[in-house]
C-alpha cells in the first residue's frame, strides 16, 4: 500500500519524522516511532519478520555503542550526554545512552520503511522531474544506490577467487585478514563499475543539459497529500501529548 504512494511526499514525511526524532530526546517517542515503522512494515507491507529483524541488526550495532557505554560501563559517553543537552525536549528520567540507542533504531526503521516501499528508480525520477535534479547527477545517484546491494555479491565472487588461489575452502564469514584482502579489490570494482556505466550512458545518448523524457513518471494523487497531512498532524499530536 505504501509502495503505491508518490515518493516525494513520502520522503518529506519520513524526513520530518527523522528530524523530530532527532529533536525530541525522549525514549517514549523513539520507541513509539520504532513500533510504528515496524508495525507498518510488518502488518501493512507484509515484510517477513526475520527480514525486519535482520534489517535492525546494523542499526542496533551503532546504537549498541551507546548502550554498552551506558549499561556495561555504567557511565554515559560524553557524546551521548552532549547530545542530550543539545536537545530542547528532554525527559531526564531515562539514560541518554538508552535514548540514543532507541533513536538509532527508530531513525533506521523509518529509513528502512522508506527504502523498502520505494523504488529507487522512481525516487530519482521524481527528483529529476519535480526538483530539477540534473540527469547526470540523478543517474549517478541511481547507480550508487544499485551498487550497494551488489557489493555483497561481488564480495562473494572475490572470496571464491581468493580461496581458489590460496587452495583453501571458502569460510562462512570472512575473517579480518580476508576482509582487508578484499577491500581494495571491492573499491576497485565500485570505481570500475562507475566508469563502465559512464561509457554505457554516454553511448546511449545521455547528454548533460539536454531535454530528456521519462518513461514512467508517477503523477501526484490526492492520497499522497492526505497521507502527508495526516502523518504531520499525527506527529504534532504525539509531540503535544508527550
Amino acid at each position, binding site marked *: 500500500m505504501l509502495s503505491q504512494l508518490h515518493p516525494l511526499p513520502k520522503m518529506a514525511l519520513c524526513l520530518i519524522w*527523522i528530524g523530530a526524532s532527532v529533536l525530541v530526546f525522549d525514549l517514549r517517542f523513539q520507541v513509539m516511532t520504532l513500533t510504528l515503522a515496524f508495525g507498518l512494515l510488518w502488518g501493512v507491507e507484509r515484510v517477513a519478520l526475520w527480514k525486519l529483524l535482520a534489517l535492525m541488526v546494523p542499526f542496533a550495532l*551503532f546504537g549498541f555503542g551507546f548502550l554498552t557505554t551506558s549499561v556495561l560501563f555504567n557511565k554515559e*559517553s560524553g557524546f551521548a550526554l552532549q547530545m542530550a543537552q543539545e536537545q530542547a525536549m528532554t525527559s531526564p528520567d531515562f539514560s541518554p545512552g538508552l535514548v540514543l540507542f532507541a533513536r*538509532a533504531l527508530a531513525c533506521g526503521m523509518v529509513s528502512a520503511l522508506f527504502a523498502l516501499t520505494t523504488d529507487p528508480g522512481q525516487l530519482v525520477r521524481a527528483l529529476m522531474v519535480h526538483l530539477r535534479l540534473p540527469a547526470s547527477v540523478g543517474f549517478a545517484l541511481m547507480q550508487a544506490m544499485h551498487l550497494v546491494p551488489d557489493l555483497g555479491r561481488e564480495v562473494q565472487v572475490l572470496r571464491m577467487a581468493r580461496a581458489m588461489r590460496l587452495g583453501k575452502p571458502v569460510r562462512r564469514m570472512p575473517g579480518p585478514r580476508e576482509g582487508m584482502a578484499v577491500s581494495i579489490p571491492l573499491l576497485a570494482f565500485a570505481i570500475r563499475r562507475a566508469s563502465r556505466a559512464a561509457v554505457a550512458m554516454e553511448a546511449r545518448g545521455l547528454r548533460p543539459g539536454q531535454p530528456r523524457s521519462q518513461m514512467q513518471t508517477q503523477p501526484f494523487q490526492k492520497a499522497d497529500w492526505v497521507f502527508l497531512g495526516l502523518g504531520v498532524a499525527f506527529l504534532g499530536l504525539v509531540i503535544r501529548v508527550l
Partner: protein
Amino acid sequence: MPNTAVWTLRETLIVAVLGAVFGVLYLGWVQVWLILQAILGAVTMDVVMGFWFIVSIIAAAIIRKPGVALVSEVLAAAVQILLGSPAGLLLLVTGLVQGAGAEAVFAATRYRRWSLPVLMAAGVGAAVASFAYTWVRFDYGSLAPGLLILMFVLRCASGALLGGLLGHLIVKALYRTGVLSGLAIERDLRTAHV
C-alpha cells in the same frame, strides 16, 4: 590535457559511488569509535576522527578537480543519514564543514599539487575545520587549555595519518588495480615519469 573544472560523466559517477561506499564504511567506523571510547575515554573521538575525512581526500586525489572533496564528503554524510546514523541530520553540516576544510587546502594549491604532504595537509585542514566546528557546537571554551591543546594536536595528527596517509595508501593501491586509467591521476603520474 588541461584541468578543466567541469566534471565529466565518469567523474560524477565515481564521486557518487565513492560517497556511497564510504558512507557505509563510516557507519562501521562509528562503532569502532564508540567501543574505543568506552575503553579509552574522552579524547578517543579526536584520535579516530581522521578516518571520517578520508573520502574527500581519496576522491580529490583521484579526480583532481574543484568541488570533489566537498561533494564526496557531503554525499557520504547523506548516505549515513539515510542508513540511520545516530548523529542524525546535523551530520550533513559536519560533512560540509569537514569537506570544506580539505577542499580549502586543495584550493590553496590551486588543484595542482597532490603529493603525500599535500594530502596530509588536507587531512589537517579538515581536522582544523572540524575542530572549529565542534568548538562552537560543544562549547569547548569551557575546557582546560591543556586538554584543548592535546585534543587539537591529536585531531590534526589523526587527520594527517588516518585521513591523509591512509588515503594516500588506498589511492596508490587503487592505482595499481588499473581502474584509475584515464583519470587525472594517471595522466599526471604517467607524464611525470616520461
